[in-house]
């Protein structure tokens, strides 16, 4: 059973190593084979993960396996499926890009695979050590990925900035984890019910009492800061725009959904028990009860700053970087309300966000492959030149704004619902204000595409912009997901609720 459980990880690891070996024998146009191998590996791993779904749903894989290092609960399997799907889409988007920009195909593919592996480890464990190992695996692969455009100075700048802040964040996380270990007396994370019993001091179960709740609280606050760096919450966000702008575009697409979703999965895993537990008395209890307020403050700061600064961006990758900061702010609302519905809303939003953000990036990559620049002004007259790409970008943006019937709407709707239910309607209202602000920068692109005539007649004469099969497939998959996630809200929200119920 245990081996079945880590089969997706094993497949991904094996494929990654295989690609590195294979790369030694590939030359010229044959380098694409590295990408195809990676795609096959991810697809196989995705099938393996999907096959775990039913058993995970029945709670048969909850473990703990290997002293709790690996769990196969619904939460873990759901996020593994998401990460593998994200990896698959990103790799599909990247194959042409990598070839055209003469990036090392083998290394690129292997690094994406290792990053996905790290993400799966983060979601699939209840142990702080394993979560940290996953985090670092992803992070190290990401630093290199950011710098893979070796002839581009900005790519190097992105890599070094990402590396420095990432290393700092890792240090803070590690320190926080050591304090949490001191507080809990174990690197294993309790689930909500075990934690409540432990904090109450005398549970009927064999759960150990918490030696020092105060140490725990301080450690958790450090973890908020450390993970805050990783998911680019304001005020820990300053590295993100530079890294996103400088990195190769498929890598930017990957950063904005993959490692970010994984870090949120880790946040959910670590913090959920503390958020939904019954309140405890005393100073320690008060300290722990502050957590939702911290998340609320960070949510407001993050979405507001992200949206306001996005307004003045002229580069579409930078704009999407700030937009993804803002979306992290929306997601935090689900943690701030600290209810089971809030956590489920976070999970659903991560699914929706992955689909719509990858959809937007798919269009950017598609156009970039045909020589369209990444400035917002390069999109002038696009609806005439590339009507399909323009329409696809509009659908992705409509979803990012949160207009029905797209996944983005249902994600926000669920978060709203959680906030109003928890008597935090003010947070929902601030989200409303932010949604209105966000229209501004998405609109700037739509205006350029639809309402401005093409600046130079030459651009129109450039003719149609055909999508390659891989990019076309990736884009179609994300757009279908953007529409389907909304119509399939019921089963997905149920799944998200189930997944978070076991935290």
């Amino acid at each position, binding site marked *: 059973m245990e081996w079945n459980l880590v089969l997706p990880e094993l497949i991904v690891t094996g494929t990654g190593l295989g690609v590195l070996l294979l790369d030694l024998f590939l030359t010229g146009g044959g380098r694409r084979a590295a990408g195809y191998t990676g795609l096959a590996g991810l697809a196989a791993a995705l099938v393996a993960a999907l096959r775990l779904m039913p058993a995970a749903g029945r709670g048969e894989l909850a473990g703990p396996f290997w002293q709790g290092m690996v769990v196969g609960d619904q939460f873990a399997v759901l996020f593994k499926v998401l990460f593998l799907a994200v990896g698959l889409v990103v790799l599909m988007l990247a194959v042409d890009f990598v070839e055209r920009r003469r990036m090392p195909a083998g290394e690129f593919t292997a690094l994406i695979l290792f990053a996905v592996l790290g993400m799966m480890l983060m979601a699939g464990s209840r142990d702080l050590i394993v979560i940290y190992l996953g985090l670092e695996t992803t992070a190290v692969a990401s630093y290199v990925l950011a710098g893979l455009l070796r002839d581009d100075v900005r790519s190097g700048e992105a890599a070094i900035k990402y590396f420095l802040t990432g290393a700092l964040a890792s240090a803070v996380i590690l320190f926080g984890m050591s304090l949490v270990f001191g507080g809990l007396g174990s690197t294993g994370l309790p689930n909500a019910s075990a934690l409540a019993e432990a904090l109450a001091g005398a549970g009927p179960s064999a759960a150990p009492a918490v030696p020092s709740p105060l140490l725990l609280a301080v450690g958790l606050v450090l973890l908020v800061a450390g993970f805050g760096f990783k998911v680019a919450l304001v005020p820990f966000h300053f590295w993100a725009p530079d890294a996103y702008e400088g990195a190769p575009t498929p890598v930017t697409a990957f950063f904005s959904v993959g490692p970010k979703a994984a870090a949120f999965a880790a946040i959910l895993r670590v913090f959920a028990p503390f958020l939904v537990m019954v309140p405890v008395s005393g100073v320690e209890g008060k300290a722990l009860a502050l957590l939702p307020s911290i998340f609320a403050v960070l949510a407001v700061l993050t979405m507001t700053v992200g949206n306001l600064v996005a307004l003045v961006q002229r580069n579409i990758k930078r704009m999407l970087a700030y937009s993804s900061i803002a979306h992290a702010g929306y997601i935090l609302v689900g943690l701030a309300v600290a209810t089971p519905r809030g956590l489920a809303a976070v999970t659903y939003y991560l699914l929706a966000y992955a689909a719509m953000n990858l959809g937007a990036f798919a269009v950017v990559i598609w156009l970039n492959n045909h020589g369209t620049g990444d400035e917002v002004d390069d999109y002038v007259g696009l609806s005439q030149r590339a009507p399909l790409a323009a329409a696809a970008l509009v659908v992705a943006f409509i979803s990012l704004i949160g207009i*029905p019937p797209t996944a983005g709407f249902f994600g926000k709707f669920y978060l709203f619902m959680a906030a*109003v239910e928890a008597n935090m309607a003010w947070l929902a209202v601030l989200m409303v204000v932010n*949604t*209105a602000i966000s229209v501004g920068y998405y609109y700037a692109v739509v*205006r350029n595409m639809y*309402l401005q005539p093409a600046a130079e007649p030459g651009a129109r004469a450039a003719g149609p912009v055909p999508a390659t099969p891989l990019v076309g497939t990736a884009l179609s998959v994300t757009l279908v997901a953007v529409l389907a996630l909304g119509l399939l*809200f019921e089963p997905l*929200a149920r799944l998200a609720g189930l997944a978070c119920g076991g935290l």
Partner: protein
Amino acid sequence: MSGFPYLTLMTFVPLAGTILILLLPRDRVETIKRVAALFSLVPLVLAFAVWAQWDQALPRAYGMVLLEHAEWIPSLGISYTMGTDGLSFPLVFLTALLTFLAVVASWHMISHRQKDFFALLLLLETGMMGVFLALDYVVFYVFWELVLVPMYFLIGIWGGPRREYAAIKFFIYTLVGSVVMLVGILALYFGTGAETFNMMEIAAAAESRIPARTQLWIFLALYLGFAVKVPVFPFHTWLPDAHVEAPTPISVVLAAILLKMGTYGFLRISYPTLPDAAKHFVVMFAALGLVNIIYGALTAMAQKDLKKLVAYSSISHMGFVLLGLAAGTPLAIAGAMYMNISHGLISGMLFLMVGAIYDRTHTREIPALRGLYVTVPVIATVLAFTAFANLGLPGLAGFIAEFFVLAGTFPVSVTWVAMAVVGMLVVAGFNLWMMQRILMGEPKQEYAGLPDARPIELFTYVPVVALILVLGVAPGVLMRFLNGPALEIVQRLGGM
């Protein structure tokens, strides 16, 4: 509950048309136009079919006709529930009729990117139909927002010189209003604890289960969403921009149907669900309604642009709907509903006329137009007819609506009636003055020999003119729909 899915078809046949048009090649313009006409004709035919059987064996439940129900998100109590009654059906009919006419009117008027235009126009129809037919808050909201996107592009791509500004202003105003409304809807959901988004069930539970103070806040949140659409002063500033910049067929749809989404929201949601809060805000409703009437009329009087004049005249007329709601008597409420329909027909018609004149003279400046009676007699006559309907000439639809509202308001407050009458005088004034300036006088040399109404234009005028006339002399045609819902709302208010 089963049976022929009239309502679903009316809502989604236009969407099917959108998809079909998107699949057609860009240069097959004639085919695209025919598809658009066909797919917007279907809802109209279906609406006629429902009208013809209204009193007969249509399936009824919850006081609703043709109820359709399917589970969508049962864990949150969200279901696809569609139904119609005397309140919504006239609006549905209006939507079907005017969208079809807008498609026909666009036939020659839209000269570039026809494929995108007709696809968006049909998508818009799906959204509008859905708003009037949905009986589940979430489905309602989905359709409500669905209207926004096509409208933005329709104004932004095919509009006048300031189209960009007008389109984004419309978009942001309505988006903010409707998202605040969504917070109100969620507050209703959790406040009632009924675990359902069904409008009727929430309406039945809201009053007893939500604390009175909270009800006021929820009412205001919903109010913001609806008031932006109506638009109620001071949320009205998007309207003149959007109406003036939009291409003629879209101005028609905006004035005739989109504004009614706001007043429909008051009538379908705010009043029946939170009657106590509605009574609490009666004075606000009346005051803002009167401001709308008088301010709209005075501003219309000052306009030199014919289209702006019509736009402000809309603001004035929507004030009567608000006044009728504030009065809260059966006659006044029925009058408000009547005004919804009559204003839809009259303002839609006025925009068509403005478009026809602009098409020929390439100006909308009132001082630049003169003597149209001589140059284009048919168009001028229809314009005069519509302007008289607009100023409330007895025998035409507008009069009946205003009369019902004022007669219904009289027992409540003579002052309100007196102030509204002042507004009516100004309305009469600017309509007459406009006619005098553009229809009469010595015709301008350069306008000699302009073509009069083409057959296809007459085809769009005749049904609307006929309806304005019928609703003016035989109010019973419409009142048979409105009486029941008006009485029900008054009963919810606990009056009369």
